[in-house]
């Protein structure tokens, strides 16, 4: 699998993501500069976390207009696979490649802590290494992770099975009204969503920061292993 990570001014989790990808693919991903206008030959484009343009104005708003994003959009239209994590998820919603928006966390504070995610479907390249209902631990670190969309969009997402992950208790129970398990206040405890063709996935938490027992576990690794399995040529 050939992966590339887009680097915007202010992106700061590209190194973490590169380590996670290198761990499963055995080779370093391409680093793609925001001002480039073309993508190299890739199986997976990753928009990594951080504070693109300082997260000023709105998270991801300015990055969504960077020159490279036209190429990313073409890549998506051609059926390419895209993973957006944290700021990357925000950028994908700002470009309209994924529905909805991410508002300030309900408690109005930056949240850096571990959370648990429940896998909602496992017939996608992103989730194939899990069973439906599996729960895994992952760090989160963001100020604006409160997922929102209008009712019609939420219904469509639910009906079409496009919710990728939900915040849950370790035992898998979901309670959107409980701040312990749904810390940023997301609608229906949504932590990640898919595009209609299931080839674009955006999520707030950071599975790339939990791929090594030394850092506390490998709970995030199945995501990357699944991608390699599915996208290897």
């Amino acid at each position, binding site marked *: 699998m050939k992966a590339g990570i887009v680097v915007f001014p202010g992106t700061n989790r590209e190194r973490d993501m590169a380590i996670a990808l290198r761990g499963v693919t055995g080779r370093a991903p391409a680093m793609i500069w925001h001002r480039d206008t073309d993508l190299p030959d890739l199986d997976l484009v990753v928009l990594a976390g951080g*504070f693109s343009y300082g997260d000023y104005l709105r998270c991801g708003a300015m990055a969504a207009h960077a020159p490279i994003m036209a190429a990313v959009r073409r890549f998506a239209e051609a059926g390419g696979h895209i993973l957006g994590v944290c700021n990357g998820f925000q950028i994908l919603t700002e470009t309209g490649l994924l529905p909805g928006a991410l508002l300030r966390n309900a408690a109005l504070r930056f949240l850096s802590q571990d959370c648990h995610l429940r896998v909602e479907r496992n017939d996608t390249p992103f989730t194939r290494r899990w069973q439906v209902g599996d729960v895994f631990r992952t760090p989160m670190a963001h100020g604006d992770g409160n997922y929102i969309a209008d009712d019609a969009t939420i219904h469509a997402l639910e009906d079409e099975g496009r919710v990728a992950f939900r915040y849950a208790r370790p035992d898998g129970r979901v309670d959107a009204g409980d701040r312990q398990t749904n810390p940023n206040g997301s609608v229906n405890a949504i932590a990640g969503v898919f595009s209609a063709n299931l080839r674009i996935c955006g999520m707030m938490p950071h599975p790339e920061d939990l791929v*090594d027992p030394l850092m506390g576990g490998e709970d995030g690794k199945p995501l990357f292993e699944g991608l390699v399995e599915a996208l290897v040529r």
Partner: protein
Amino acid sequence: MSSEKGQRPVDQDLAKEFGLTAEEYGNVLSIMGRTPSLTELGIFSVMWSEHCSYKSSRVWLKTLPTTAPWVIHGPGENAGVVDIGQGLAAIFKMESHNHPSFIEPYQGAATGVGGILRDVFTMGARPVANLNALRFGSPENPQTRRIVDGVVRGVGGYGNCVGVPTVGGEINFHPSYDGNPLVNAMTVGIARQDRIFLSAAAGVGNPVIYVGSKTGRDGIHGATMSSSEFDEDALAKRPTVQVGDPFVEKLLIEACLELMATDAIVAIQDMGAAGLTSSSVEMAGKGGVGIDLDLDAVPQRERGMTAYEMMLSESQERMLIVIRPDRTDVARAIFEKWELDFAVIGHLTETGHIVVRHQGRVEADIPLDPLADQAPIYRRPTAPAPVPAPLGPLTDPVGIEQALIRLIGCPDLASRAWVWNQYDSTVGGQTVKRPGGADAAIVKIEDTSLGLALTTDCTPRYCRADARLGGAQAVAEAWRNIVATGARPLAVTDNLNFGSPEKPEVMGQFVAAIEGMGEACRALDFPVVSGNVSLYNETRAPDGSSVSILPTPAIGGLGVLEDVAKAVGLAMPADCTLVLVG
């Protein structure tokens, strides 16, 4: 501000307002052989401020042990540098931003983090961890909540955005910090030992370049203010508050590290307190050369700035670099790529003077040697600090269970998760032990088996009871916290926060604390490689008297693990035996 001052004659009264004593101003006159210009007076006043000159503390700081076979650079550079093996060096320092954090807690703390980051990456290190040691007033004081909230948000706001994990720190509460919180920020970075950058300028004719953000009228006279007692007056006189831009800092880190991978840089220094003044004076002074600055070339954010304002501005996220002339274009291309300002604003000379030109006029021309050599040094009178009364016998035995509950619930011991949960502690993907995970935070060095153990420690109440033992205890605790993780302690940075040095009993505490620290550092082979002094931490009591903070010599300790996989944390596995040692 300067337009009014510009019209005032430079004289002893004005010098006094700038914080210079009559004797200090007399020295200025004899060095200059004439009445200085306003800009020159400004330069003297900041260079001779407590903050920049360490005039009350220098003689005592010299007594601290600073060497060991593994120390590469001790105090005197932007940060301390130690050998951690495998050709790598850890570069680290702690610095205070106490007074700005009282005026504007969010920005004060944020710019504190920004400043210490620059001290570290200016030496060629990629910052890999931040820590912060915070002291606040009584939780009952209505101001405390606002200050805590702003400071914690500010530390997180800046550190999270630049993408350096905040992995540890400490927090205490005491009424003596009511009007004077302490915000001590520490940054640790990693560099290759053969790629360490220093600040001594060299090469007459070499261009001096300015990179980063534009200069505005921010924080003019911040350095002199942070060296004066804090009261209502100071609040009224406060300069334009500096606002941090962590986004630009992140770009500056990447751009500087990219430039540092070339051979372009001769010397580099961040613009900290008294920005352009202290960076240019120190770089030229250390290199024994002169420097000519052309202020017309300085990137400016506001219109009509005077030379005085530009020389004293404390706008954030700026660096000064002496560069090889044939590499200027390489450097320009890198900074343009990162969308940062870049300007050649001067060159090195053989005059031994700093000469500042603006709009066709020479606004300052000062010989550098006497500016440095004749900076005031004071051996201020000391007196023993009053010893607090002994605590007396326990009068209210509540039973062990109640006592435990009270202890766990008290502000100084309660969980700090509400703080560290606002700090991104995992960015970078190298955090082995996050806050609360071990006695010292553990960060892996990417692509090696090495790990760093990092901690900050000080118990101010002990220091008040006995400053000498308190100073020693702080060092010993840092050492123990590192050892407890399995790491080998290497060196410390410190941040000495005290009241007014003009009070003999405060000076007594200061001297005693340094003695204690020195003793402990020598006994443990744990040298001090960098640090910072913050004096005049005083608040006005309701009766008008001035109350000093508890003596607070914060210690930042660093240790190394050859095999980071062996790091030991706090979590107790179910099947283990508890053993008490010591």
